[in-house]
């Protein structure tokens, strides 16, 4: 594995390995001295074209705990408006001598385009409405910590699927790990061509949350962004919650062993009630803490730490 651009870059073996290493990293995190020397002398640049404090700091801590030199570069705002092309921006950063580039970009495909221009390992830290593979890894990691092996488990992903990068990566990784996936959303928030896509990729989809709910082992609720409310995707927030929110009633219909995930940040009261978010089986905070361990594992595998260790 040279880059991590998509969850599809991971075979089942590779995914299992990353998750296993993440578990070891997670143990390190609980130690008093958290640093491992494995990436000493290596440089990791967080190149963020879009703000995301959570993801950026997670990668930053991950790199530092592996003893890498971590540099944050904010290239916020459209590079087009600054008159500098993506290639120029990336080449400038790469010229400083970089081993790994962690890229967050508001446009789908940008990290994979970057791989044509640089030698560094590229990690997609979220691109447009495309993918966010480390989020999927940490989701899988967290779900496994409660549910065990995900093979044959039923995971529902509910919410604004069209505009979510989380869903695409999760869908691919969960299928790789053998889970059954059902996507749930109103038709206006389903990715286009969903029927063909579902057929080819072997997952199911539904417009009816209540029908799917009693079968689930995990409910992954996605954020519904404020701008969708004026985009005509659904009539009112109230109607959305009634149809697709994880309400108190739905919480009761969800099997007792089932876990609740949300990649955050949450709109409490819209896609998820406060009760659900704070329940014992809600893994939302576990997801955050797993984020660092998973990203340590990814950097370690990409930068050949495995050979050195």
């Amino acid at each position: 594995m040279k880059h991590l651009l998509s969850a599809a870059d991971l075979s089942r073996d590779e995914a299992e390995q990353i998750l296993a290493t993440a578990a070891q990293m997670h143990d390190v995190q609980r130690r008093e001295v958290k640093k491992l020397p494995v990436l000493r002398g290596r440089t990791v640049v967080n190149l963020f074209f879009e703000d995301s404090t959570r993801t950026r700091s997670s990668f930053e801590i991950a790199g530092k705990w592996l003893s890498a030199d971590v540099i944050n570069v904010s290239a916020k705002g459209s590079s087009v408006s600054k008159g500098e092309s993506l290639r120029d921006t990336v080449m400038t950063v790469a010229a400083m001598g970089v081993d790994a580039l962690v890229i967050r970009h508001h446009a789908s495909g940008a990290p994979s385009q970057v791989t044509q221009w640089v030698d560094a390992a590229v990690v997609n830290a979220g691109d447009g409405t495309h993918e966010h593979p480390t989020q999927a890894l940490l989701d899988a990691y967290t779900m496994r910590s409660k549910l065990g092996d995900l093979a044959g488990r039923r995971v529902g992903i509910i919410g604004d699927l069209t505009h979510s990068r989380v869903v695409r990566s999760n869908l691919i990784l969960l299928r790789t790990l053998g889970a059954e996936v059902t996507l749930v959303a109103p038709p206006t928030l389903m990715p286009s061509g969903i029927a063909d896509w579902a057929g080819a990729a072997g997952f199911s989809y539904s417009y009816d949350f209540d029908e799917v709910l009693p079968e689930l082992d995990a409910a992954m609720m996605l954020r519904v962004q404020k701008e969708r409310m004026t985009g005509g995707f659904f009539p009112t927030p109230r109607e959305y919650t009634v149809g697709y929110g994880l309400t108190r009633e739905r919480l009761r219909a969800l099997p007792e062993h089932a876990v609740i995930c949300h990649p955050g940040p949450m709109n409490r009261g819209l896609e998820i009630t406060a009760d659900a978010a704070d329940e014992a089986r809600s893994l939302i905070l576990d997801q955050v803490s797993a984020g660092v361990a998973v990203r340590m594992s990814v950097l370690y595998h990409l930068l050949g730490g495995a050979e050195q260790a």
Partner: protein
Amino acid sequence: MSESYLIKGADLLGAGRQDVLVDDGVITEVGRVTAKGATVIDADGLVALPGLVDLHTHLREPGREDAETVATGSAAAAAGGYTAILAMANTSPVTDTAEAAERVFDLGRARGLVDVQPIGAVSKGLAGEELAELGLMARSRAAVRVFSDDGHCVHDARLMRRALEYVKAFGGVVSQHAQEPRLADKSACCHEGELSGRLGLPGWPGVAEEVIVARDVMLARHTGSRVHVAHVSTAGSVEVIRWAKSQGIAVTAEVTPHHLMLDTTKLTSYDPTYKVNPPLRPAEDIAELRKALADGTIDAVATDHAPHARHDKEHAFAEAAFGMLGLEQALQVVNTVMVQPGLLTWAQVAEVMSVTPARIAGLTGHGRPLEAGEPANLTLIDPAATVTVDGAASHSLSRNNPWHDMTLTGAVQTTLLRGRPTLLDQEVSQ
């Protein structure tokens, strides 16, 4: 001193070997001709067509001379077998006045490789609000007959209606970039479907084109005017156009080489070379477009040649400029996907790439039959040559060539504009 050329043994529109004698800009003899001091052009194995006419070329002059100039675009056109091109109005400043149109016209004549015929904007500044000075452009030295806001759709139904009515006074035509902006906004960059869903690219649904085509043919019927649909890209649009023609509505349509050949799966690499507007469509649409070109529902092939400087393409896919080059490979693409598979004869290629475009654009000196007494605008193609396209060898200033490294069948050998070679044995004249 007259210049004469004797084209020996050309396959005339695929109908058999003839010699063509050209003297002083005019075809003087067709048949078995002996050279009388004329320069001989050996055309053994080559097909002769009337010089090609492109209804849809973007030259970037004025405003973006780093991407293309009238001169470099003319060279690319000559290399592709064209003798006339229509230059779109979306330059900077916009071609929305008589003076601007005359300037483009003059630059083309000065270079002298192809006749550059300006297209006038429909609305001032392409803003879609007020009509540009259509009549003054029509009366100018450039004698503008085609009007288009291409790059933008004339989406205001009332403005479109007025434009259609107004151009009737001078036999003009409105060429529409059909894109309902509420259904496919500026961010739309990938055919809406399974692939756009999977790649997370903003969708450009076919219906955004089809609703405008449907509306415009009804407006053309209401006004009794001519409407031309630029770069038709979907089977649904073809269906509407077919119906409109059956009703006697004066609609014509063009299809681009790339929409005839390249499908939406090219986008899986996120390579901005393949970012074009309207977007590449699925194979089912491509099959319908080929059929419609063969049966005459689509009237013409037009390139939508859209050169871009490298740095305007080296952005994230969704932020890169729309458009790809077209002039140099158009005839090769048509040969590869239409002629070789038996969908079009060479006589039909002459219709869709020369005769009909010239008629739509009101260019009387182009798209003429290859007969004695006609202006000597013609092109020679070697239909059997196999060519691996080298995008770096282009005459265009830009390198956004979607056929780079692909193998096409056919090579344009020679182009004559009014009896003078503008391309001779694949070399553009200086």
